[in-house]
């Protein structure tokens, strides 16, 4: 394999970029280094934003052939592509032509199509949770029972009717939140921080290549 294709090169770049951020944080290296570090963060945001069409291309690769070959459900794909193109064109940042984020068509579409769709899409889980509460939330062991009881007490804390009937639900709920929950989350946070440190070390030394995987040769 040609040297420039080797996976070591991106690993070295990863390590250098990481060190640019890490070293000035621990050592006083002077204002010019800190300025460079800050500018670098901004600069790489431009590099990152360059990827803006990647997601769109991946989706279009799936849907355009579906429309061209009239495969099942091609009608829906047409709606998807049409919506995408309209949104994109009216949202292009060319204010000289009246386009952009404050264009009225763009505003109308995000206000009346994207907003209701996006906020409804995730609210549907309320139904799944309720039906699972009925069908699957069983006190099948002592541990599950503790969880269910604690969870039910929290439900009564969060429901105004619970605290209106007995203010104690509020106190118990706060205790559960501030003592067992806080302790559990803190231990998980500490574990997560250690995990992040070790992952960082692995990536900088090339032991972690998961993020570079996929496709290609």
């Amino acid at each position, binding site marked *: 394999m040609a040297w420039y294709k080797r996976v070591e090169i991106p690993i070295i770049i990863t390590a250098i970029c990481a060190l640019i951020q890490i070293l000035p944080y621990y050592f006083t290296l002077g204002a010019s280094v800190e300025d460079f570090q800050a500018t670098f963060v901004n600069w790489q945001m431009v590099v990152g934003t360059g990827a803006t069409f990647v997601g769109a291309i991946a989706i279009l690769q799936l849907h355009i052939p579906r429309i061209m070959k009239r495969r099942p459900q091609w009608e829906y794909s047409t709606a998807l592509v049409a919506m995408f193109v309209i949104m994109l064109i009216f949202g292009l940042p060319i204010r000289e032509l009246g386009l952009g984020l404050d264009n009225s068509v763009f505003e109308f579409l995000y206000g009346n199509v994207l907003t209701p769709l996006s906020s409804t899409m*995730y609210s549907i889980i309320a139904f799944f949770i309720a039906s699972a509460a009925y069908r699957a939330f069983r006190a099948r062991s002592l541990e599950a029972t503790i*969880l269910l009881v604690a969870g039910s007490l929290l439900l009564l804390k969060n429901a105004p009717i619970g605290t209106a009937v007995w203010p104690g639900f509020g106190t118990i709920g706060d205790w559960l939140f501030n003592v067992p929950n806080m*302790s559990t989350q803190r231990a998980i946070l500490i574990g997560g921080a250690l995990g992040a440190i070790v992952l960082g070390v692995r990536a900088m030394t090339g032991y972690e290549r998961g993020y570079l995987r996929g496709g290609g040769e």
Partner: protein
Amino acid sequence: MSDFTTYFGAFLGVLFTLAVYSFLYRENPWSRLAEHMFIGSAIGYGIAYDLDWMRSQWEGRWSLTSTGVTAFAFALLLGLLWYFRFSRKYFWLYRIPLAIITGTGLGLAFRTVVFAQLLTQVKATAGIQLVGVDAWTAFNNLLSAVMVVCVLLYFTFTVRQTHPVWKPINVFARYTMMAGFGAAYGYTILTRMSLYIGRCQFLLGVPPYAPENKTFFPWIALLILVTLIGYDLYVKSRASAKT
């Protein structure tokens, strides 16, 4: 805004909200249409925002100095390398911008995570007040320190836990976590119900949502229900015609 756009907007909003909910009856053409419209508009929206930010970066920062122009051009060039992701032959080029982004992200998280999420947390537990506070507070402080330590011990994997002292520690840790996860459970239900309630407020036109929504709600609900049941009958009749 003219009357027409207000009405048409309300109509679309209610239609798409109910189209998503029709999934609860079963997967159907309405919900499929809603899903596709969502994806299409979300991607278009995201790109528009990215490009807008790029333009203002260029105008407000990089175009002002000659070094800036070079740096920006170089960043754009690197940004183009992302698209080699779709090439089998030049795939390796895509790893360069990826490495820059990942490296910077890792570095930024790495430098502070040890303080924000490790030392500050250890410090807050190690520095609990046991003297000079009332008995209940002192008890809770001590209890939470014990809980943190036990849960941390539970998540260690290199010590062979043969000594009998491990058993109560692990049991206590698991019970602590279950009580703690009870909070997570309760709050998750709160969120899911809140999101749904928010949509109902939208459908009912509770201010500040458009009052027109309320007018459309029953009619569109009826329309979707009728078409769903109609579609079901149609599918059934076609299936029976085949056999």
